[in-house]
């Protein structure tokens, strides 16, 4: 039986890979994909803590469902913004997104 530590380390590895992708990639869609990896790591943490510490109450599961909702809303609006910027700028490089900079 794998203990809580195994799941926490898996979630930490997934989170750090997502963090690295969000820092080091040029394409904005790739940055959004890395953000999704980090949200998945957070959900693994919630479900693992719920399973090992208080399996009778499903608070972690319900919070995980809310994270699903927020992630879906975030990716929909984020990709809409990306497509909108691509129409006016014809680029998906985050270093070219300097519209708000002056």
């Amino acid at each position: 039986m794998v203990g809580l530590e195994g799941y926490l380390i898996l979630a930490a590895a997934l989170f750090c890979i997502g963090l690295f992708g969000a820092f080091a990639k040029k394409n904005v869609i790739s940055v959004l994909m890395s953000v999704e990896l980090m949200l998945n790591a957070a959900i693994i943490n919630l479900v693992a803590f719920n399973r090992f510490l208080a399996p009778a109450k499903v608070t972690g599961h319900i919070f995980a469902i809310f994270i699903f909702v927020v992630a879906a809303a975030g990716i929909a609006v984020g990709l809409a913004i990306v497509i909108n910027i691509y129409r006016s700028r014809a680029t998906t490089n985050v270093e070219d997104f300097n519209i708000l900079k002056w």
Partner: protein
Amino acid sequence: MISPYVFWPIAVLIVVFAIGVVHFKNIVHSALMLILTFVGVAVVFILLEAEFLAFVQILVYAGAISILIVFAVMLTRRIDMNESNPFNKLRWISLIFCLGFFGLIVRIVLTSRISYEKLAVQDTMGAIADGLFGNYMIPFEVAAILLLIAIAGAIILTKGVKD
């Protein structure tokens, strides 16, 4: 219990797929690796006896969000697909930072003593339904409103408003 013989190969596969997401130069390959990562996380949910979340993970992440990402890749396509996903100049600094952060988290996890006993799990799906229509009713409705606003905002952002 068969769980360690399933968990550790799945964990290694998830980490390999996630590294593939950030490593591949072609963004379509990254999207494929992202779908495989989501399916692996669904298997982890089944190992944690959260079957409903595994279903939702497959439906929402591996189904809907992956389709959204692939469509966004197709709508923002450049000429050369093989160089569509490069690293920027922060690559090595952020690699060192993320490895240090990972080491810190692993050290904290391994040195902290979290005491728990093996507890039995019963009927998570019914308990989730009770929670969503009982204690967590108002956040549930707010989440519905948030989804509606996100859909309307995405349509307006991509299509534009004619006035």
